[in-house]
């Protein structure tokens, strides 16, 4: 960030000039609201907004990946869409499978002020020029977004289940849901499409990932204008469209494959399904990764192992998948094989192997990682897992051997805490290790820290229940698997 002279409350001496200066927030990012709101006094407002738009080009990707028959998640998958195009049957129901993926960023999307950023997926389905259904269009009055759209946000609430929507971060207690996407990861959004029997065809499905710096609620709050129309600029972060023929209707032109390899599209789809909260969609994720494996990519068996870990299939399935991932050409990254292999071994009670794999992981020296800055000895999850497996080994020993292992476990846990002082597993582990070693004061200290940092189950449940009752759209969006209904927006502005 550049600095500029501006004697406001955030200013301080930042260089040798001795002048108080503030950080210039006009670097390219996504804050299109400020230049827009200050456009009367900011001569370069349009240029600034354009700079933000250019900066965000290619950071996200949306992919109309496939359809599922019957409009249900267990319907047969027709994918990938393009170059092949399925022929739709009038009167039938389908599930439109849209994949959102982060492409060029090193943090969660959107992160930052995820409570008031407004990022949503718009989807329209047209029969020729006739709008069949839509989700995420702007609504009058006020150009608010259809509240039943899929938002890429974090719906955070306070202890009483009220939404955090006034920049009152001090009241944040828990997330009702979190639709943010980590770097290099994806999410899958389902839309139910009920085709009318009188289709003329072809059917065009279009989707856009749209971004507005502030949602209407927050804009109205800080402008103190309850009737304010949300005219803030909207950035289009990504888009996709596909036109499909209808049985008995006109043909559609041939299309090229998408500019992303099929295995990657399928893998992204699987990742989105694997990441679904709760029970999620492991069956469908498994199917996707089996396809990726059949396409010859090591990501297939590696991600299958992740599915099996989540499923609990660690006795046979996960070890076999990891063996295939290791033997494939090219092989899966060794650090991934070690990390997931250690988890499988630990769950199977083979803590000797788990420790060996984790120690190998933190020793580093991976040829494939040269220049990439990987250092797993700085990964607190790895260190806490090492502590846990070492502790488990200690529990089955007696005497000096036990004490030695307990002290070793303590070392790993303490290293984890150096990196993440609030790490629950490490505090709980240290509570137990110190108890075993007879260090009562340390045991109590870590028990207290565990109690302090552990999410309060009762308070969390109470807040979530109240929020689900208070916000019907969020109540629906909070489920792990959400099928968004498409609807006509006869009053929508449409832009």
């Amino acid at each position: 960030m550049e600095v500029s002279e501006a004697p406001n409350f955030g200013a301080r001496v930042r260089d040798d000039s001795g002048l108080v200066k503030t950080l210039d927030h006009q670097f390219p990012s996504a804050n299109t609201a400020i230049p827009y709101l200050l456009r009367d006094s900011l001569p370069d407002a349009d240029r600034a907004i354009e700079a933000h738009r250019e900066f965000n080009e290619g950071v996200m990707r949306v992919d109309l990946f496939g359809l599922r028959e019957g409009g249900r998640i267990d319907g047969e998958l027709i994918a990938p869409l393009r170059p092949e195009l399925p022929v739709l049957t009038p009167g039938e129901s389908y599930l439109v499978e849209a994949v959102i993926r982060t492409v060029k960023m090193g943090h969660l999307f959107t992160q930052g002020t995820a409570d008031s950023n407004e990022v949503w997926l718009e989807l329209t389905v047209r029969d020729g020029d006739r709008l069949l259904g839509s989700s995420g269009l702007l609504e009058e009055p006020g150009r608010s977004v259809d509240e039943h759209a899929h938002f890429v946000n974090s719906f955070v609430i306070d202890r009483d289940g009220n939404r955090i929507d006034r920049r009152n971060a001090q009241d944040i207690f828990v997330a009702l849901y979190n639709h943010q996407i980590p770097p290099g990861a994806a999410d899958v959004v389902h839309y139910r499409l009920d085709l009318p029997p009188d289709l003329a065809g072809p059917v065009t499905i279009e989707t856009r990932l749209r971004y507005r710096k502030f949602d209407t609620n927050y804009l109205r709050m800080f402008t103190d204008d309850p009737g304010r129309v949300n005219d803030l600029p909207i950035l289009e972060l990504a888009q996709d469209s596909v036109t499909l023929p209808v049985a008995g209707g006109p043909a559609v032109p041939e299309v090229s494959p998408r500019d992303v390899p099929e295995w990657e599209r399928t893998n992204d789809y699987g990742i989105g399904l694997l990441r679904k909260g709760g029970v999620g969609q492991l069956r469908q994720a498994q199917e996707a990764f089996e396809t990726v494996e059949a396409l010859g990519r090591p990501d297939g068996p590696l991600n299958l192992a992740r599915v099996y870990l989540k499923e609990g299939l660690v006795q046979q399935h996960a070890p076999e998948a990891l063996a295939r991932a290791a033997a494939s050409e090219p092989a899966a990254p060794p650090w991934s094989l070690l990390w997931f292999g250690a988890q499988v071994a630990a769950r199977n009670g083979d803590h000797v192997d788990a420790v060996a794999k984790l120690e190998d992981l933190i020793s580093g020296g991976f040829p494939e990682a040269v220049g990439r800055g990987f250092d797993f000895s700085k990964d607190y999850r790895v260190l806490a897992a090492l502590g846990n497996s070492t502790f488990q080994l200690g529990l089955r020993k007696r005497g000096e051997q036990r004490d030695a292992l307990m002290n070793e476990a303590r070392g790993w846990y303490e290293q984890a805490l150096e990196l993440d002082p609030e790490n629950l597993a490490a505090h709980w582990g240290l509570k137990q290790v110190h108890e075993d070693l007879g260090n009562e004061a340390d045991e109590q200290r870590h028990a207290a820290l565990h109690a302090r940092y552990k999410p309060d189950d009762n308070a969390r449940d109470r807040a979530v229940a109240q929020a689900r009752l208070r916000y019907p759209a969020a109540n629906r969006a909070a489920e792990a698997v959400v099928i968004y209904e498409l609807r006509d927006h006869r009053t929508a502005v449409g832009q």
Partner: protein
Amino acid sequence: MSDEQRPVEEVPGDDRVIGQALKWSALVALALALVAAIVWFARREKDVEPVVVDRGEIEAPARLVPDAATRPELRFTDVTTASGIDFVHFNGARGGKLLPETMGSGAAFFDLEGDGDADLLLVNGAPWPGDPAPATSPTLALYRNDGSGRFEDVTRGSGLDVILAGCGVACGDVDGDGDVDLFLSNLGPNRFFRNDGNGRFTDATAASGLVGGEDDWSTGAGFFDAEGDGDLDLFVTNYVKWSKSIDERLNFTLNGTDRAYGPPKLYEGTYCLLYRNDGTGRFTDVSEEAGIRVDNPATGEAAGKGLALTFVDVGRDGLMDVFVANDTVGNFLFKNLGEGRFQEIGSRSGVAYDGSGMATGAMGIDVADHSNGGYLGLAIGNFANESSSLYVEQRNPWRFADMASSEGIGSPSRLRLSFGIFFFDVDLDGRLDLMQANGHLEEEINEVQPSQHYRQQAQLFWNRGSEASSTFVMVPEEELGDLARTIVGRGATCADIDGDGDLDVLLTQVAGPPLLLRNDQETGHHWLRVRLDDRKGTRGNADAIGAWVELSSGGVSQRRQVMPTRSYLSQVELPVTFGLGAATTVDSLVVTWPDGTKQEVSVDAVDHELVVQPQG
């Protein structure tokens, strides 16, 4: 005066300044040298090629294959219909997917008339208010055992032919009249039935004071002697503050289309209940003064979401402590402080959370000296994709650690949603095995999770000794006969229904018939069953609940507790069963009665049931 003799105080002022300056200069020079060294080292580091390790192919973790070398054949046969049991559980479900419909009901093996046989009570559900009555009236079901494993339905006219939104059952002779009374925990008011001694029961709920709250959802229940005064008190777990209207307003779904059962997380917690018996079967709610009302420190509201409980003297101080399995919040251990007062120490003792310090979806519970080593093992059945817990007592008192993964029940149990769970010696080899009844809550679970099914097989973990690499090994389902039938398992209990010495099993299921499974093990192992009879109440309660029996044979000591309250919503029989393996003699048998009195009993023969009464 030489310089050497000069006191430090006499150093001229200038010298002091110069000396100080020199010291600082030296320190600065040293610091600069250090910085230079660091810079040089850092630059040198940059010049050095990164260390690269060629690992070759990474070895995948080993597959977990059950060791079949020493495991005997362990088969069970479904004798439900053949034995005369035609009960079918009713849960009132009509598509609304209301949480209570899927939590199931329990069962109890108990001696109805004092003839020594394991009779059976099956708890049933009820239609929702306003719904039509089902064709078959869903009353409780009472079956009398003829001693050979043949059961006769004696519900009608027994006083138990009532319809309750039933969950759990507790058995105990609360008035010391020599027969077993019954407490039924329900969604709504609870009920207490006094055994009149002739196969008939009288509803004595009002007189007993055990009705509980009008809107409570009571689940696990058990009789135990809380204060050591010789009578049986009652502990009841309540689940959540469930609300039909909230359940209906929140749209739970697994697949995005169909309604699913909602999680307990969306309801507030509840308090457990402790009732003190005045010795005649009249009870007083002493929960508050006993210290068992656990508040969440942040919300100030009830913290528990209890489903199951069991009792054991953890402190070896003659006082019964209480373990409570809580669903999605930390488990409780109520330490008995004496004089009817308790202190909750679940987190401190290590049993509140799993190995990563998080709460589990705990359902059923049991505790035993599973290793024959004097250390208690607390088993808890948990939700799907969570392993069952095995909290093993450690070298320091009141301390447990979850050893499920290293003791062989971790990964296999992740594949099941476990409810009923108990230790028993399935093959009479003198080591306690572990079994759990399984079944998912959601009929549609397989649409999203291929490893999960609504109907699930029970699991049996065979104890191969604590000297093995893991104490338990799961018996492959294909070797279990009808025990491996897929059911929507909930309650689980055991008894020797046919007098052959080995323990038979009964599993309950939601909206279906129970599964009565005859143990067909043919190991030829010898056994001894011990029934404690203290109907005169000289050594505590009439059923000797809480007594320990220690048997030594062939160099192995086994300790077993008389404790019907185990598992999930259920009660097991009172007699304790010892497997003797190949041994044909018993070296010693010592009974520790509930009042702490030890009694040595001579055993002249094996392979029979021994009835022991207090001496004197």
